[in-house]
């Protein structure tokens, strides 16, 4: 039960955080210069986008939930289960970021979900 709450936090806050961060990075624009000074500039610009802060807070929450679950369960179970965020990610990409998720991508996401189910069933 307690683990379920942590999993929901990892998936919910994690995916929500990544979506916010993705939205912030799109606002920053495509990174073309990979020299350290330019990358620091990118980081500074990214931190001026408020979506970045929302995203980082959510991802921090997910991180501590991950630590909690990892103290109770094996990595080879925990990490695949968090892949359930794929469905959440595709839905969020479509409705929050306005990305077009093709039928092919949906098929891939569905396969990933089937794989996650098998991983859970493979529990000893």
């Amino acid at each position, binding site marked *: 039960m307690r683990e379920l709450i942590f999993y929901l936090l990892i998936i919910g806050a994690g995916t929500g955080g990544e979506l916010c961060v993705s939205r912030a990075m799109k606002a920053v624009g495509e990174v073309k210069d990979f020299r350290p000074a330019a990358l620091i500039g990118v980081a500074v610009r990214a931190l001026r986008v408020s979506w970045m802060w929302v995203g980082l807070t959510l991802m921090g929450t997910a991180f501590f939930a991950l630590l909690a679950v*990892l*103290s109770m369960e*094996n990595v080879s179970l925990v*990490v695949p289960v968090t892949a359930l965020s794929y469905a959440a990610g595709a839905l969020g990409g479509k409705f929050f970021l306005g990305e077009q998720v093709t039928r092919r991508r949906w098929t891939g996401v569905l396969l990933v979900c089937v*794989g996650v189910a098998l991983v859970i069933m*493979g529990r000893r």
Partner: protein
Amino acid sequence: MKSSATLHLKTYLLILLMVIFGPLGNVLLGKGMKRIGAASIGTPAEALDLLSRVLTSGTIWLGIGSLITFFVAYMLVLSWADYSYVQPASSVAYAMVALLAHFMLREAVTPLRWMGVLVICLGVLVVGHTPPRTTEPT
């Protein structure tokens, strides 16, 4: 106008970094947390004690370092590629996690679980054949 070949190469390189350092980070965190023991956060004092044990663990910090490397690569790639493209593409990492957990942490991975991991990778392959960007640059 950037050629799509360059865009793909840049994307794949950063995804490779993500696939190495993301799983390594998770496995190191798992190793560190296993050593610390099951989280008990019933009272604020317990939570503080747990936090201090987490923050003084070298293994945890190695894991955090790996995850930061992963995160930086992830951020960079997200500046041009779709989230719903990058997220599934990076899930090759799930196979890496299973392999690392098995060989580094000696976790027992059942055949059914390996099959699940393979199906996840198959899903990744399907997703990898879709265009990296569907929204117009703004």
